[in-house]
């Protein structure tokens, strides 16, 4: 029997009024895989993420996580189940500190009630202490430990991206969706990022799906890649197969009739 899918998107269509952002979108991931989702701008990639994480409820189709139907569940429930994500246009909590940004993501695990928190009972203090330590470890892993108490909004772009990843990791996810993690990065930074993603895949036992435009990154670390164009899947395969796929090339460079 083959390994079960940890994430399965089954024929999802996402329609906004007259606009079809995703059509018959299906995707399957096995535990531990590192895959890529690529396609020209507006192809529906972020929409796919939004459907998986519950921000949109699909017009048609279903999403399964660990064999459980999570279609249309609230994003915070889905996060609690184990899917975390970063955002294309970084969405940090700008006036909170770097550390607090990460700590927000551990709130979902908090067992203490508000009253216990107000009274600072030992039960709460222990949890808080634990979460703080974990958060600092995550910040060290992404190299942000020394700016832990700075305002997140004041960080340079590259650090903000790393903070987003640390924050997502703090939810202790099983599946991590990265939306253009390499955007705006230099060549060295991309190399570092590639190593970093492979490391966290291993160290945190994750399954990772990433949206990217940086081809070196995608081709470099992804085990397989799915290509979207105008909301439809036009190809799926290994990096080598995708690179040589005429439909993919056409989609990116424009085919007959395109300017």
């Amino acid at each position: 029997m083959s390994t079960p899918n940890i994430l399965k998107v089954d024929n999802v269509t996402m329609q906004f009024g007259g606009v079809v952002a995703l059509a018959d979108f299906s995707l399957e991931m096995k535990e531990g895989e590192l895959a890529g989702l690529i396609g020209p701008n507006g192809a529906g990639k972020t929409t796919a993420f939004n459907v998986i994480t519950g921000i949109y409820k699909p017009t048609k189709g279903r999403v399964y996580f660990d064999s459980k139907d999570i279609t249309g569940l609230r994003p915070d429930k889905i996060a609690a189940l184990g899917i975390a994500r970063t955002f294309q246009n970084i969405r940090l909590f700008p006036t909170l500190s770097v550390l607090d940004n990460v700590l927000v993501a551990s709130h979902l695990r908090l067992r203490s009630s508000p009253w216990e928190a107000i009274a600072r009972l030992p039960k709460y203090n222990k949890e808080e202490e634990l979460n703080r330590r974990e958060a600092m470890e995550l910040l060290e892993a992404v190299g942000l430990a020394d700016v832990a108490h700075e305002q997140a909004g004041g960080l340079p772009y590259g650090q903000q991206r790393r903070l987003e990843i640390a924050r997502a990791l703090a939810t202790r996810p099983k599946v991590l969706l990265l939306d253009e993690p390499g955007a705006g990065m230099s060549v060295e930074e991309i190399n570092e990022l590639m190593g970093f993603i492979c490391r966290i895949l291993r160290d945190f036992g994750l399954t990772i799906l990433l949206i990217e435009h940086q081809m070196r990154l995608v081709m470099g670390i992804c085990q397989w890649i799915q290509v979207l164009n105008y909301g439809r899947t036009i190809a799926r395969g290994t990096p080598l197969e995708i690179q040589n796929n005429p439909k993919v090339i056409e989609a990116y460079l424009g085919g007959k009739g395109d300017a």
Partner: protein
Amino acid sequence: MTFALFLQHLANGISLGSLYALVAVGYTIVYGILRLINFAHGDIFMMGAYFALFALSALALPWPIAFFLAIVATVLLGVIVEKIAYKPLREAPRMSAFISAVAMSFFLESFAIVVFGGRPKAFPRPEIFSAVIHIGGIAIQSITFFIIGVSIIAFLILTYLVYRTKMGIAMRALSKDFEIAMLMGIRIDQVVSFTFALGSSLAAVGAFMWGLKFPQLYPLMGVMPGIKAFIGAVLGGIGSIPGALLGGFCLGLTEIMLIAFLPGLAGFRDLFSYSLLILILLLRPGGIFGVQVIETKV
């Protein structure tokens, strides 16, 4: 209830509805462009009534001229209010503009209390408006016809301005997509001033007629009509002009008819409006015409 009485109530409802509709437009066109609830609009309405009062009694002008002057003065006030309280906050968070609008509203109210005094002042009613017209056994005040007539004319002018002039097109463009309209070279400041001027002029028209119909002016007289007109605008779909007209009108008509049929609930007439507001906001915030509520992009 006799048929005659019913018709009286209906006439009342139609005139009140028309007045609400006039004021409602002001809320909706400002919200459409700036996404701002002009809290002070009801108070501009109030000032319009006092301007008319001043023109009629202190200046002893013939009523058509007083009417015109009141409109001019109110338009000026509306434009000035925008320049002082809203324009500086266009880039600021929405809550700041909201607070500013509330502060402006309170300022106008307290200013009126200080300058005009808290005691109600009588609005002079020119002879012609005291007439009562009898149609088939029912007595209807001439004011009612005046209100309906003037309102229709006002709405026709409004429609012309909004759909057939350059300024009107600019207004509508701005309300559809603020940034793109700016890129198209539309002068924001001008259009916004025009919008406030338009809204204030309609409020002044409504205020003059309100004074004729309910000849007691007092500084807080704009509060309830303002709220009701606003609720009407939300009912019709905030940002939509036909919505404001329809919603304001329906609200006024329903308010009168409700009390006509259930006089015991007279104390709850305001409650009806507030509850309606909450229901709309919860169940169908886009109102009757289903205006799109802004969605954040992810």
